[in-house]
């Protein structure tokens, strides 16, 4: 579709939306959440919105089923939502290109919010130098969640590990006690996530940014620290038995919950499974960052607001943003969903042990980087996933082979 047609469409949209403004304050909320903890969390915000006198119309499209294509088709079809859950910067560029962007930098400055956010969150909400997202919740991509009972039975103390080596050294003890030390799932996305979490933890934020940032520096691949990361990944792969093949992450989490394995390293979202099984953070399970981690990777769930609408709708959309970012609401939301608030000043007494730990880690701006989905070129990132998954699956593939392949991919995609 040509630019002019899009512009015409956008103009038409604006007209049609403006004519609806008499009914204002009915917010159409587009998202991909339907699981019980997610719904409970959404209801927290809904109550806040209704307290401000607005109504909530819900439209849920499942995640990873082309959800942002669907968002664009709603916009194109003339029934756009007002508020949408979306992290991909490309979608925001498309929407801004259609004249429907809603810049929020001024609003964030007026409300003095940015300096209350962890650095990685603050970085993730901007697209091309303008704040356009309202951050809702955060997860760290590679946290260690361990079963406290198993740790006790095996006689190991995960909190005492100060390096990956110390962690792997303890694994024999766990095996001797009759447990699997590490529950992993061998799926491309799981290995890809583990890889970038390891790059941040083992190779550090500098190499991470050179590899997963907007501008890729292929020289980072030759850094000895990167080779060390792949060696560490190999140690993880060695812990994956044949049953790990294509195992979903939540089944892996269940191995730890049911006490068959000591620990899992994965995104914070696995806390939902623990809570679903009726376990309590700090009593039944503990969470720590990867031992000796130089940095952690932060994933942020964020809302976008649709611009080009009437003043009443704009006010309602900003009311939505202020409910989402209210410190107390943030804590309530996180407690319901099993996530962590995006504000460092969220009231700590309503947070569980894991969220407190995550916020403590995130107080240090130098120790955090963003999820590659927000920063990296999609083709480049997919090519990394391919290489590391082959590396993971083939014990005969050497670290040098993997690095050579990444160089070749770089030449093909970005060179």
């Amino acid at each position, binding site marked *: 579709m040509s630019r002019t047609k899009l512009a015409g469409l956008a103009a038409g949209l604006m007209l049609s939306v403006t004519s609806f403004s008499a009914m204002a304050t009915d917010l159409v909320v587009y998202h991909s*959440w339907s699981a019980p903890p997610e719904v409970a969390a959404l209801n927290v915000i809904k109550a806040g919105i209704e307290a401000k006198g607005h109504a909530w119309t819900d439209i849920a499209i499942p995640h990873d089923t082309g959800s942002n294509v669907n968002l664009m088709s709603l916009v194109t079809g003339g029934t756009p939502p007002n508020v949408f859950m979306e992290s991909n910067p490309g979608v925001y560029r498309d929407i801004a290109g259609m004249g429907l962007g809603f810049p929020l930098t001024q609003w964030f400055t007026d409300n003095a919010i940015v300096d209350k956010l962890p650095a990685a969150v603050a970085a993730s909400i901007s697209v091309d130098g303008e704040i356009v997202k309202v951050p809702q919740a955060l997860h760290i991509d590679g946290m260690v969640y361990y079963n406290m009972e198993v740790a006790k039975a095996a006689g190991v103390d995960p909190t005492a590990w100060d390096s990956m080596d110390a962690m792997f050294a303890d694994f024999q003890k766990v095996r001797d006690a009759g447990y699997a030390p590490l529950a992993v799932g061998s799926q491309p996305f799981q290995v890809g996530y583990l890889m970038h979490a390891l790059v941040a933890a083992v190779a550090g934020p500098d190499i991470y940014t050179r590899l997963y940032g907007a501008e890729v520096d292929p020289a980072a691949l030759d850094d000895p620290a990167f080779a060390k990361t792949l060696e560490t990944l190999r140690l993880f792969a060695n812990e994956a038995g044949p049953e790990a093949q294509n195992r979903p992450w939540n089944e892996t989490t269940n191995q730890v919950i049911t006490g068959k394995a000591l620990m899992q390293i994965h995104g914070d979202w696995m806390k939902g499974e623990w809570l679903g099984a009726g376990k309590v953070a700090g009593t039944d399970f503990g969470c720590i960052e990867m031992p000796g981690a130089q940095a952690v990777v932060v994933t942020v769930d964020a809302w976008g607001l649709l611009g080009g609408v009437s003043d009443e709708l704009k006010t309602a959309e900003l009311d939505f943003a202020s409910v989402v970012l209210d410190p107390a609401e943030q804590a309530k939301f996180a407690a319901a969903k099993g996530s962590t608030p995006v504000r460092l000043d969220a009231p700590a007494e309503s947070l569980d042990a894991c969220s407190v730990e995550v916020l403590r880690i995130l107080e240090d701006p130098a120790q955090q980087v963003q999820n590659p989905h927000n920063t990296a070129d999609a083709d480049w990132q997919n090519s990394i996933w391919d290489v590391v998954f082959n590396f993971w699956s083939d014990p005969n593939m050497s670290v040098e082979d993997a690095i050579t392949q990444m160089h070749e991919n770089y030449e093909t995609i970005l060179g």
Partner: protein
Amino acid sequence: MSEMTVAQRAGAEIAVDRAPFFPRKKKTITGRSIAVLILLTICALFFCIPLYVVVVTSFKTMDQIREGAMFALPNVWTLEAWDHAWNSACSGINCNGLKVGFWNSVAILFPSLILSIGISMITGYALALWNVRWAGAFLFILFICAFVPFQIIMFPLITMTATLKIYGSLWGVAVIHAVLAMPVLTLIFRNYYKDIPQEIMSAAVMDSGSFWNIFTEIILPMSGNILIVVLILQITSIWNDYLIGVTFGGMNGQPMTVNLANLITISTGTTRYNDNMAAALLTAIPPLVIYFFVGKLFVQGITAGAIKG
């Protein structure tokens, strides 16, 4: 009394004697057929394993599923998951179960069926039996169109339906189903109708039958077989469709498959396998029922020349 019985019996015997008599070969079960039967049974059981797991899991409690024994029978048989899936599963913030989507799907099904079958039936009839200019070229283009993936023309279709003011409504979904099914269905109908002898058409035209008269009085009554085939094809594809429903259904017209996907596609929440299995079965039941009742007619329709042409 007894005489009559004898006479009757005699009559019956005579009748039998008169009828051509072919002695049936005695059925013997050979070792070979036993082996084939056993093999087939094993194959059938093998293909039923996933279904078994789905059915059994839908009756388990989440606590038992977490233990991980996939093939075990439920410790406690419970209908909780079925009840939850039908009545209180969440699609977004609305937790009214799959029944919302079920009725949406039903509401989508009927207009979509009528529109898609109606249009392609008449097109097929016109192309097969009337002297249409460029009919061959038109068929060729239709045939090519059957290979265009929906995703490529999605955005233009959205703009078109938005212009027609039917985007985001049941009618939007129905029109798109009709448009997309048109190539294949038209070909099917056309191939079926072209076997109707030209003499019948000539006679009908001579009886001063118009286009519509001939269609309703001659063609429609002859279309039973093919209608069953197309009905089954369309019911299955419309009921199982996800993409068209989710794209054109807008906010209130989402079919059952979208509810199902909302329930099952979990990004950062917990996965409740028993609910998922029950929901999947509930969604799959309607086409299954259709196959069960009219499956025989479907085969008849195919053998009668519906698709073989």
